[in-house]
């Protein structure tokens, strides 16, 4: 192929193009920025510990969380519970169970609630958002009107309304109740991004090339729309845990006391909050710390991905 650049000149231009053979994608750039962000590490450490605790919890818990080992030190009539003692650093709860073990094992259930509720919301939102964003027209209008209706109800109220539909509330019902109000949030977010991508030149270029609709949606539009959704997901994990705690608090959560969950523990503790505040303090504190961890992570992600920070 003949161009008018002479060989020597071309070599000079070649040298001027970024040296180094490997390109760095935007993902790699974001990761590099993330690594330098103290916010990220703070959040990541908290979340990491939480996940580790959730996985190995049952094995490192000193006692069976469901076993009423300290029942002899617990008296309903005298409103006393087992105090902190050797082998039971946090003491017991109103049922004589080891608080520490319940806390450790409870991490797993809490994590499951947060992750699954977010996943369901995310997947549901993705489906709706991609449908609306990719097809446009009446499908878009229909989906968005449904989303609008769902968004008009405050999320906690919606979760409660769904929660009461279940006759036997358990962890699954909590997950479903908490996840459904998140679906429209993701759907709207994704659809907005997809709409912006639809108008972009690179999508137009792909159409001009004759690329089929499928690859355009999944190779061009979705990857460019997904960043704010990922950020939102980390934040939604946090709010799911909170919402689940609220549902448990209201008595709509899991009634199975052998499987502790922090929100449920918080709900149980409301009865004795005056006399034994530590029963509420520990689960509430743990929820707060974990929620903080996820929030910091999400914020760090958002900063790293933000286009303003890009070259």
């Amino acid at each position, binding site marked *: *192929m*003949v*161009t*008018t*650049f002479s060989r020597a000149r*071309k070599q000079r*231009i*070649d040298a001027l*193009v*970024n040296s180094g*053979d*490997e*390109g*760095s*994608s*935007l*993902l790699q750039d974001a990761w590099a920025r993330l690594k330098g962000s103290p916010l990220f590490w703070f959040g990541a450490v908290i979340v990491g510990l939480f996940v580790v605790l959730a996985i190995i919890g049952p094995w490192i818990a000193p006692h069976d969380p469901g076993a009423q080992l300290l029942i002899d030190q617990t008296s309903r009539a005298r409103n006393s519970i087992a105090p902190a003692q050797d082998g039971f650093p946090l003491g017991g709860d109103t049922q004589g169970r080891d608080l520490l073990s319940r806390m450790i094992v409870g991490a797993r259930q809490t994590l499951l609630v947060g992750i699954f509720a977010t996943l369901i919301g995310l997947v549901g939102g993705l489906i709706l958002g991609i449908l609306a964003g990719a097809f446009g027209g009446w499908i878009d209008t229909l989906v968005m009107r449904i989303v609008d209706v769902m968004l008009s109800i405050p999320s906690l109220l919606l979760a409660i309304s769904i929660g009461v539909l279940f006759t036997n509330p358990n962890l699954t019902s909590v997950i479903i109740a908490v996840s459904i109000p998140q679906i429209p949030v993701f759907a709207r977010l994704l659809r907005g991004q997809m709409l912006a991508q639809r108008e*972009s*030149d*690179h999508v*137009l*270029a*792909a*159409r*001009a*090339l*004759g*690329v*089929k609709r499928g*690859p355009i949606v999944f*190779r*061009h539009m979705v*990857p*460019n729309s997904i960043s704010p959704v990922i950020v939102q997901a980390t934040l939604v994990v946090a709010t799911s845990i909170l919402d689940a705690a609220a549902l448990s608090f209201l008595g709509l959560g899991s009634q199975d006391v052998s499987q502790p969950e922090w929100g449920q523990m918080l709900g149980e503790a409301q009865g004795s909050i005056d006399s034994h505040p530590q029963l509420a303090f520990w689960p509430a504190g743990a929820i707060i710390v974990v929620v903080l961890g996820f929030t910091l992570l999400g914020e760090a992600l958002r900063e790293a991905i933000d286009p303003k920070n*890009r*070259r």
Partner: protein
Amino acid sequence: MTGPAAWEADPIRQDPDLLTAEAAAAEVEGEARAGASGHQSEPLPDVPAAELSAATAGADVLLEVNDLKVHFPIKRGVLIDKTIGYVYAVDGVSLAVRRGETYGLVGESGCGKTTLGRGILRLIEPTDGSVIFDGENIAALKPEPLRVARRRMQMVFQDPLGSLDPRQSVQSILVEGMKAHGLDISDAQTNARLRELLSAVGLPNTALRKYPHEFSGGQRQRIGIARALTVNPELIVADEPVSALDVSVQAQVINLLEDLQADLNLTYIIIAHDLAVVRHISDRVGVMYLGALVEEASSQALYAEPLHPYSRALLSAVPVPDPVVEDSRERILLTGDLPSPANPPTGCRFHTRCPWRQPTLCDTDRPQMLEMRPGHRVACHYAAEIASGQLQPREVTADVV
């Protein structure tokens, strides 16, 4: 050199009427040294070949646009959107582009040239009119045949950054088109083709693994051009190919486009607002105003003798980097602002700002494009009188709009 040989083997390129790639390349090299034109295949006779309009030349017309209209509805409403008006972005444009030539579309903002370019490729659905590409009516094609037909007509975009997917590597961007049309037969062949294209646009092979944001504006534009070439198109519509680039880089890309046209026998439609760029690169130029073509001529003829009042004002407004010329030239200033494309003036669209406006016809009848000189069409009721000097323009001074 594998380049020219590979191209000649391509069956689509075997057009005996046009120069082979090698000869064209040699001509380009030789003429680059001599500093003369590289476009035309034959020497310029008294009436240059480019000046013959499509009708008289009987030449090989690749693209024919007939009365194309693109009207965007203006919608308003709370629950259900109602159409309350239209934006007449393109309102009846007819033109023809011969195989191998460069047709320049020039005009200011709001004239509809970008919409026309996209309407021709049916990236925007035309409201009316037809687009005949190599005998086939593009506007009538169903989605799948249209997709297949797209291979032969490609587009280069204005914004080098926005038109490349930021999340795909250059390799992935370039291969996409080939995959869509089944041109990626084997890995080896595809890779060879990619390397060939990159070298054709002046980029090193290392570019393949990099991402768009790692390149400069000029380099990104080259990638965009390479992408358009991956599918062996015959027609390329370049929408403001150099306006987003630095001045010193514009010439690189302009030269590249010219070289590629000579090597690959491409047909170009260049859309730009920079008259100097369009004049330099085009064989024929069409001037657009408010959705309609007002003048069409060879680039030489348009500059030598613009017949339409708008063309005259436009040409006189373009700055020339030569103080002697600037000090001595006659400036024709226009009054007022561009009317809204949603509410175009009656009759001749230009009459509200025309220095030569006459009391009759101008505000009632829309002028048609008539061939005043061979190959030179104008849409003006009084074009002949203005050209002969019979009618004089009104004086417009700088501080009166």
